[in-house]
């Protein structure tokens, strides 16, 4: 057992566990989008879970830090908040905000984060960027890049369940998003019976056709 101090509160935690995971379990609010429990090699790509740790000069991502006895952590310093707000606004500048029609609105992580950071659900100082990519066909799935926040959870879960990933990141830079690899053959892919990727997607950027048509009917 290790004792750590988070925002001046003493916490007992198992040495070697991920700092972010421990904090979240104790109800400490740290914004995060790409973190997946029990994943040994975190992608650390959303850049939201920053904290300050005594003895380390710059803020660090808490999903890549292991708990060590005596660690002193601050989750809401000015530097941490500055980085988080910028990262959050950058993500929002590529996320089409359409809460009224979004199936994820009740569990929306983005709304939660805007509350933690006390900022609007808006990119504010950054002009929105429309990402243009050619739509890919898939027998079951629809992917909407204008909502995707590139958290990578879908790719992770697919690989975990099927041993290989039937979806993956493709393209570079701002156009990076999910690709189906041209997996069009309904027989050879497991997607018909599995909906893990759509379930894990925090922003409903991946949807199954039937789900999608329900959505259209409701509108």
């Amino acid at each position, binding site marked *: 057992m290790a004792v750590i101090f988070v925002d001046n509160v003493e916490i007992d935690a198992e040495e070697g566990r991920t700092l972010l995971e421990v904090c979240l379990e104790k109800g400490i609010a740290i914004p995060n989008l790409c973190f997946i429990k029990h994943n040994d090699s975190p992608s650390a790509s959303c850049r939201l879970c920053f904290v300050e740790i005594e003895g380390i000069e710059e803020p660090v991502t808490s999903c890549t830090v292991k708990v060590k006895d005596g660690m002193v952590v601050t989750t809401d310093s000015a530097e941490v908040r500055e980085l988080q707000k*910028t*990262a959050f606004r950058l993500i929002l*500048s590529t996320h089409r905000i359409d809460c009224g029609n979004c199936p994820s609105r009740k569990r929306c992580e983005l709304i939660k984060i805007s509350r933690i950071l006390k900022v609007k659900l808006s990119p504010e100082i950054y002009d929105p960027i429309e990402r243009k990519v050619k739509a890919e066909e898939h027998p079951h799935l629809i992917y909407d890049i204008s909502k995707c926040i590139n958290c990578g959870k879908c790719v992770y879960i697919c690989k975990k369940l099927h041993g290989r990933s039937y979806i993956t990141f493709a393209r570079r830079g701002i156009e*990076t998003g999910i690709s189906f690899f041209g997996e069009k053959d309904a027989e050879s892919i497991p997607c018909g019976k599995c909906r893990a990727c759509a379930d894990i997607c925090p922003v409903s950027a991946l949807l199954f056709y039937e789900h999608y048509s329900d959505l259209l009917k409701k509108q």
Partner: protein
Amino acid sequence: MSGNNEDIKNAFSEIKKNAEKNFNESRNSDIPAIYIGMATCGRAAGAEEAERAILETLDERNVKADVIHVGCIGHCYAEPVVIVDNPGFPPIFYYNVTAGKSKLIVKAFLERGDPLYEHLLGAMEENELIPSVMGFPRFGMEKRIVMEKCGHIDPEDINEYIKKGGYASLAFALSKTQADIIDEIRISGLRGRGGAGFPAWKKMEAVYGSDSKEKYIICNADEGDPGAYMDRTIIESNPHQLLEGMMVAAFAAGASKGIIYVRHEYPLAVKIIKKAIDDSNRMKLLGENILNSGFSFHIDIFEGSGAFVCGEETALIESVEGKRGMPRTRPPYPVERGLKNKPTVINNVKTLSTIPAIVNKGGKWFSGIGTKSSPGTAIFSIVGNVVHAGLVEIPMGVTIRTLIYDICGGIPGGKAFKALQIGGPSGGCLPESALDTPIDFDSLTEAGAMMGSGGMVVMDEDSCMVDVAKYFLEFTKNESCGKCTFCRIGTGHLLTILERITNGEGREGDVELLERLAGDIKRGSLCGLGKTAPNPVLTTIRYFRHEYEAHIHSKRCPSLKCRPLTAFYIDLGKCARGCDACVGSCPVDCIFTTKGRKKGIDQEVCVKCGECVTACPEEYNAVIKVSPPHLVPHIEKLEESK
């Protein structure tokens, strides 16, 4: 290691004896030797045409000479370069050797003994006949360690390399302990030449100290910086030196497998390094039980897809593993968990190519060159507005001023120096006030730039610094792997803001916004690409803030570079009545005749291509460029010419 030192010595002297014999048989010292620089840069400048002309003329005139391909000597401004070693003369360096000059060299020099003083740069050694090139600062002030043999030897001839001292450091190292070699590198103070300047011995030691059975060494020859070509040239000009350095490092670290990661866009480098590996394997300098020492080592080539981010060590490893080239978080560092999660040393081409000289001459010798904290030499490809562009190798600590003005001949056309972009897309722009900064890892970082892997672009007064920042951001934005938020989206916003500034749509507060976003990207990004991508923006703001402000507040581009902020008009005082030289040059037909039968430009139609500036006869020079565009005077048309 199991080998006995005597065995190693014997095995090596046997190889050396054979190599010397084979080399001597392949060359005939009684006839002239003509060395042609045939690296990618030489070929691009016309070395193949020069060779063809030489061969044809030799044949035609029935003159005997050996024509030998060598790599690049680094003097790109002089290419194609031909060095002629004519018995009775010192070896002579000829520059810009066109097909015509090639013929002349054969006819005048080889046939008649006239060395053609007007076409030579100098002799390659001191002599009484012809002034030596060493008197020329671009030669004399350089210090060549890694590039010593570049352009002097045939890169495809392992025998020549061995004859001239090659692989001696390998034989020596194998007769020492691993700890001895690591210690020698530690004493040398060698720091990684791939950008960050990390002490080379520490990586070797970490991997050596690990108890993993499998260990790897990777040579990073991805070289993605636009305009940089040092690593390519070194591979194309002296591949065995790299292999030798890699073998010594592998021995010290205990790695039995090496990978050279070369970009696919370097076909000649790939071909040459492959041949070098085959030759070393054939001569048993690579493979099992090298020189009977008990040390076995194999090298493979991996051709990268040419993505900039794949030069980042963890992305490079992912790419070798067959995954998408995206960086991993560090720690763990590659020395702990590298290729296939095994301890891996990863070093740049130049770092590894320096090792043979260190082992041969001693760490102490190396540490005496350059500065205390950055020993040795720095290799740059210096391009842009500079007279003697090309590859230079200088002792660390030389100032930027000495490099540009003394060694490289200054700025052409009598223009003023404005900035030096150093370190490529991760580096920064340094202004005139930084000319006295010594070139070493720490001084450059302090000035806001960085050593990077060695690209340098010299810019004269006509360069717009906002435009320069935009150029580099466009590059990094496209090369971002798309993994982390700051780099994927943040660089896009930096570019958008820069674009609106250069388009004359800059908003109040844009400079501050750039600074804030750039700072956040620098601190928040996952890998080195994002952490350094804002440097061109931050340094241009730091040193040239007034240029940003002129663009934003007065819609003026001080260097008259940004098209939307400039305009052309014809100065009626200078324009010659009746002359219409410019009229035909305009692609959009917007030049009209004025009342006084002079010319004017229709501002509504003009696309600002600048063709008329070139077309206007020099004695008039009547086309004027201004910024902001509203400075253009109103010029009336002649009614009927409409």
